[in-house]
């Protein structure tokens, strides 16, 4: 007849298991803390915090504006709905580059044999700095615009564009000026660059527009 384990043996077993569990948790959690922090640069974290603060401020503003729109629509007025749709259509045409625009911004000029990748990086720098409308020489650009290389230089959405380069950006003038300043300083250190500079403008006009392609493959 097999002997039954006594209550005391069970208690000792449970205590030992608890001990092992606590010890493992303690040691692992310490290792986890060490591992998660390894390689994280405080300066990088500080930049991330700054970016997240700015992003959250923008999101909060947008959420507030959308909440106000919803409240106005809840009144049930057709006129209100039509006014809101008109305002949104006007704003989306600006966002999508479909209409000429004006506003404060910067004009960056670069005389250098820049590649499509150089130009994409420069345009992205300006977008990161809050550019709401962009043009390269006389070509309006949005994120989906295709900058490519051809035998003679660069094409924007299939149209040949030649240097010297002029980048037009409308948006927050302070942030754009700061980005343009850093960018042109870096460009002047590039041996390919003959000259690079920028000027801030209180009311810049971008007349060129994007030709929008209708969707062929995608649907809502």
């Amino acid at each position, binding site marked *: 007849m097999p002997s039954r384990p006594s209550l005391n043996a069970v208690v000792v077993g449970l205590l030992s298991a608890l001990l092992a569990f606590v010890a493992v948790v303690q040691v692992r959690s310490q*290792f986890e803390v060490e591992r998660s922090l390894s390689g994280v640069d405080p300066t990088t974290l500080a930049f991330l915090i700054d970016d997240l603060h700015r992003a959250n401020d923008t*999101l909060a503003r947008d959420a507030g504006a*959308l909440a106000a729109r*919803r409240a106005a629509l809840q009144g049930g*007025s057709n006129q209100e709905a039509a006014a809101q749709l008109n305002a949104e259509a006007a704003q*989306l045409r600006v966002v999508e580059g479909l209409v000429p625009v*004006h506003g404060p911004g910067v004009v960056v000029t670069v005389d250098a044999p820049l590649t499509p990748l150089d130009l994409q990086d420069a345009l992205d720098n300006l977008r*990161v700095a809050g550019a709401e409308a962009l043009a390269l020489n006389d070509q309006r650009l949005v994120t989906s615009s295709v900058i490519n290389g051809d035998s003679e230089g660069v094409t924007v959405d299939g149209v040949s564009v030649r240097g010297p380069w002029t980048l037009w950006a409308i948006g927050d003038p302070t942030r754009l000026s700061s980005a343009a300043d850093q960018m042109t300083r870096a460009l002047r250190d590039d041996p390919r660059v003959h000259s690079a500079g920028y000027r801030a403008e209180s009311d810049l006009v971008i007349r060129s527009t994007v030709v929008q392609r209708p969707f062929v*493959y*995608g649907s809502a």
Partner: protein
Amino acid sequence: MTLRRTGAYLLVALTALTFGYLITAQLRAELPVPSNRVVRTEALVRTVQDLESTNAGYRSQISSLRGQIDTLEAQAAQRSDTTQRLRDEVAGLRAHAGVTQLRGPGVVVDLGNGRPGAGATDYLVNFQDIQDVVNLLFQGGAEGVAVNGHRISPLSSFSGPAGTVVIDQGNPLNAPFQVVAVGNRNQMEHLMGDASKLGGLRNRQRALGLALSFQGSPDLTLAPYDSALETRFAQPA
């Protein structure tokens, strides 16, 4: 007799507990003691995590509000032909801005970090890599693109330190990355398979083991853009 045996067992258990505690304390003591720098970094990490949580909350709120507004506009459009026409026009603009769901054939591109090299960060996927892939997909006829679920808008920007990608007002993203594009599947597959494209990424794939692969699909769905599309400075001329 039983009482004495119970006492013995308890003594053994207590001894085991004490022994275990001492071993744990010793092991912890062997680990590096957190310096002030580590403590500061820990505090910064916690701040980033809090801000990320707030960020996700706002984006969820924006998505929800856009949905509610759409419903209210649909109700208004039922009462007025003019409102209905405006709503149809705005629907087309919203689709091109990426603020509505998009479904269709396309390509899924997967990217992952490689093997750490001698101190450099080239083995990490960076924001320029993601930007290059997104640009190539647009060149191949993408009508909509999303990175790790974050839809690309006409104003989208890419930034971030090595190994981190920040798109617009979103949270920092880390590898593995998945870029999903809806559009001309054949052309996008052709460009992704072209060895002369994405040169820098392919070189690091060979040298440092970065992961880069793609697959076409007949039916993909992109979620709507969930961040702000602000134009505070640019106005129609």
